[in-house]
């Protein structure tokens, strides 16, 4: 946080009311909270999500609203300041009295909002790929869990590219840490020796990549095919890929698969040095389906011709539509009723197939692997069937015994070994 933004909770809400379409007999509009940073370091990624929410709400209102009411977006700005996420969540739920929140990007911000959501029994849709190991009663995770992004990408490395020596490079924060811990355990279980796994963490915005890239290249001296799994976040990627290019490392020699580099991050970058490297997501803008073409066209019409779509946007698209359908099915916006109606909700993916919301609050989605093209888009070179999201990974001993099932077990952290519910709240 920066102390200066401390009190943004004061009056941070701006209500955006869509034009009333029909005279309704509802007392007040249905309110949707949008909790994405519009300033600070995360604004670059999160502003887009605010925009896509406004577009989806506008579309829904144009289609007649929800339960005969208009939907009103309550947009707040947590300013990339983690404590502010908690404060604004409280404000949205108690002062603005929203029915649902769509928001958060980093795991820290989600963990900041979690206790408030669980205390006040709110409902949040979280749209970003994350490290798993969580299943809150009050959160629906529409982004990928590790088994929907990281594990398939590593499988692709092992199976298709024959990689035998792994460099796990990441920015030093929770998502890379947990993901790499899971991947290390997974690689060991696949017979990769511990000395063939090189792990490195760098700070946010790191720029001095020459030594690290040299270290990675030197791994090749072991006589094994080297591959890089990158959980490097944000700006630091620029220096990283530039250094790869400078040292003449091509994607054919040392492939890099990134979990945090998407269309939005590539737009406005010189993608020349990145071409041929890989990224794993559940959605790419280049997906060649009719429904995606419509979505992209609507987005460009709404936000501008040069804008791109990306994976978290699809997550919000699916999440919002599922919520709308669940509210319609439940006939109310009451959180408990909607939650129950959410289980088993189905909605078509933009990339084909159908997303299903599991009772562990995670989606089943296809896993896509794309190759970066010179134009900043991705060539989809692999697409799996829908994979159900797994809240608790099978590859760490502590969490392999845990499972989440809110419908049958009524518990998000259920120990199958002792048949007890560890806790009803989440770890934060």
């Amino acid at each position: 946080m920066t102390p200066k933004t401390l009190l943004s909770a004061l009056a941070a809400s701006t209500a955006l009311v869509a034009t009333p379409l029909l005279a309704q007999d509802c007392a007040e509009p249905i309110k949707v909270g949008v909790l994405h940073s519009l300033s600070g370091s995360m604004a670059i990624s999160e502003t887009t999500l605010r925009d896509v929410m406004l577009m989806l709400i506008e579309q829904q209102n144009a289609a007649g609203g929800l339960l005969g009411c208009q939907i009103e977006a309550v947009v707040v700005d947590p300013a990339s300041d983690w404590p502010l996420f908690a404060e604004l969540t409280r404000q949205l739920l108690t002062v603005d009295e929203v029915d649902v929140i769509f928001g958060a990007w980093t795991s820290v911000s989600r963990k900041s909002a979690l206790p408030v959501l669980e205390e006040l029994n709110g409902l949040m849709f979280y749209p970003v790929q994350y490290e798993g190991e969580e299943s809150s009663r009050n959160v629906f995770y529409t982004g990928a869990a590790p088994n929907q992004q990281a594990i398939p990408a590593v499988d692709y490395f092992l199976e298709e590219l024959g990689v035998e020596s792994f460099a796990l490079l990441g920015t030093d924060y929770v998502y890379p840490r947990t993901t790499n811990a899971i991947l290390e355990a997974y690689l060991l279980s696949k017979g990769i020796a511990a000395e063939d796994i090189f792990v490195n963490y760098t700070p946010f915005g790191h720029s001095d990549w020459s030594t690290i890239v040299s270290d990675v290249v030197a791994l090749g001296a072991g006589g094994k095919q080297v591959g890089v799994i990158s959980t490097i976040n944000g700006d630091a990627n620029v220096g990283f890929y530039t250094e790869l290019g400078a040292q003449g490392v091509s994607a054919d020699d040392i492939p890099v698969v990134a979990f945090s580099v998407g269309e939005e991050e590539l737009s406005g970058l010189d993608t020349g040095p990145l071409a041929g490297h890989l990224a794993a997501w559940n959605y790419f803008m280049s997906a060649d389906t009719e429904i995606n073409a419509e979505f992209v066209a609507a987005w460009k019409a709404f936000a501008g011709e040069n804008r791109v779509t990306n994976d978290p946007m699809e997550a919000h698209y699916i999440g919002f539509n599922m919520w709308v359908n669940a509210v319609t099915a439940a006939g109310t916006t009451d959180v408990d009723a909607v939650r129950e109606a959410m289980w088993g909700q189905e909605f078509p993916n933009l990339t084909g197939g159908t997303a299903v919301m599991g009772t562990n609050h995670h989606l089943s989605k296809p896993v896509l692997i794309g190759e970066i093209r010179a134009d900043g888009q991705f060539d989809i070179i692999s697409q799996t069937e829908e994979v159900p999201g797994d809240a608790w990974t099978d590859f760490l001993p502590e969490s392999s015994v845990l499972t989440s099932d809110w419908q049958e077990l009524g518990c998000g952290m259920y120990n199958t070994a002792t048949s007890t519910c560890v806790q009803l709240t989440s770890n934060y």
Partner: protein
Amino acid sequence: MPFRTLMFRALALVALAIVALPGPARAQDALQPALQAFADDLASPSRRTIESVVITLIEQDHPNIGEFLRRYSAREVVQRPEDGLFFYAEDAGALVRLVDIDSGEAVAEVSSRDVTQIRTNSGVQRVIAAALVPLELNAPERERRMAALDAISRSPDASQIAPLAESVERETDASLKTRKERLLLLLQAQFAQDRAVQLSAIAALGGDTSIEARGVLNRLTATVTEVALALPEGANIARVLNVGTDLTEAAAYELLVSAALAEPAQTPAMLREVLAENIVDGRVGGVPVGRLSDPAARIEAYEALEAAGTVPPRAAPDEAAQAVAAHVFFDRYTLDDAEITAAAQAALDSTQQAIAAYQVADLVLDGLSLASIFFLAAIGLAITFGVMGVINMAHGEFIMMGAYTGYVVQLFIPDYTISLLVALPLAFLVTFGAGVAMERSVIRHLYKRPLETLLATFGISIALQQLAKNIFGTQARPLTAPDWLGGALQINDIVGISTIRVAIFVLALIFLALLLYILKRTRLGLEVRAVTQNPGMAASMGINPDRINMLTFGLGSGIAGIAGVAIGLYAQVTSEMGANYIVQSFMTVVVGGVGNVWGTLAGASLIGFLQKGIEWFNPSNTLAAQTYMVLFVILFIQFRPKGIVALRGRAAGD
């Protein structure tokens, strides 16, 4: 059709070379039916399955197979879902033009959604390239021969030796010929049938520090750790492992367990489970369940169960140690031929010292590069601090301003070389102007209150940073280096540095020389030094301190602008980039000693080398290196409060 016959001959050769299988090599009339036989594997290609398909197809020796595989590999092949036929796809505006594989005629134009594009991944591409090697090695185009050589180096195989050896003599291009000879050596070291050839090839790789060569040798000397009751006869043992020094007892026991030579040790969790299964009337082995929160009581309960015969006996405390002692642990070469592994090991050992020396050299290069970056970032600050006693918190924002100047220039001048040549002086001018403006409007009024300049310039810093955000957005902007700066200066596979860093180093040297010249040899420099040492006296000698202050500040800021362009070229341009360098720059100045070019150089070198050195000890944690570096600086200042090169003057304090 002379081309066809040529292809045919080449392919006949290929088929013989690759599979060396007797069989009816018969050209078919059309390729499509042959492809249809493998329709599923071709439609969803995987590295695991494609190899046999490709080999069989090449075996069938169809004249068009080479072209097909190349285009298939380049993702130009689509499948029509209705009939499963394969076509070449050509771009036709919004539609895709389907071209018949055999006739080469356009068949239809359809929407891209009506056909399935087959996207071969790079693993599949590698397999195809390797399969095509014998054919491509003698291809007329140099690029194709080059690609074939790359394919060999990426997927070496015994079958490549013969065609490669044959093609070496035919090669006309000198550099390709050298490369072919070298690859042949690498292949022979691994796969030669003739032991003498293999041994001589291995010997020839001795002293070679290249990654390729070491990769080959390391593959030959790969070992696995195993355990047995006694050393197996005839096994090619690399070394016997000593429990306690080479591996811990716990690790040794784990090996025993994984080799099924011992039972897994009972963990507390397992004990707990066994006890839970044996609860009878709230008691386990006579011990009340309530007492079992005590580990000793758990053992007592287990022993009671053991005595009753309900559970297997507990392992004796030293059972694990005994089991480990009864076995021998060793590293075994995966290759059984002791002569080969010994030769490879010898060849590998002969490079060890050279590698260590090169690694140090590489570290020194990295350290130099980092030091030159720190120097460029800090020297402007050092000048203003030394001459005026003013800490300029907005210095980092001048760096940012320089970088954004470079970015804006690139928007207008698309040629990267020219734009860089324009950007450097322009960045200097822009930041020089900004520096002078700031000095005139703010700092001039605060000379009596040096601590407050720190705060006032901080105010300017946050305003400038936010201004940059408002103008350029929060996203990182590219500042692309021209191609001639894009590569790396690669001395060998270990020692190398990117050209851009060399350029930054040269830039730092130029500025070092320039500043020394200005300070030591010009009138301005004389006056600056005079003001630094004693402003009052300087003023009474007719020097106008106001003018000197203004020019010095401008100069310091201008250099920051240049540093900004340099830093932007190798890293990213963001509104926060200045803030990332400011604290480091402060430390450089303070460690080096204020107001002295040499001091800054010393400070930058110390910090740069120190950081790289610590990183080398702990390569997996860059943050730790930075932390310890800052801690070192804190301690260093305690013992040399005036820095490495102490100077007397206004900034040196009372």
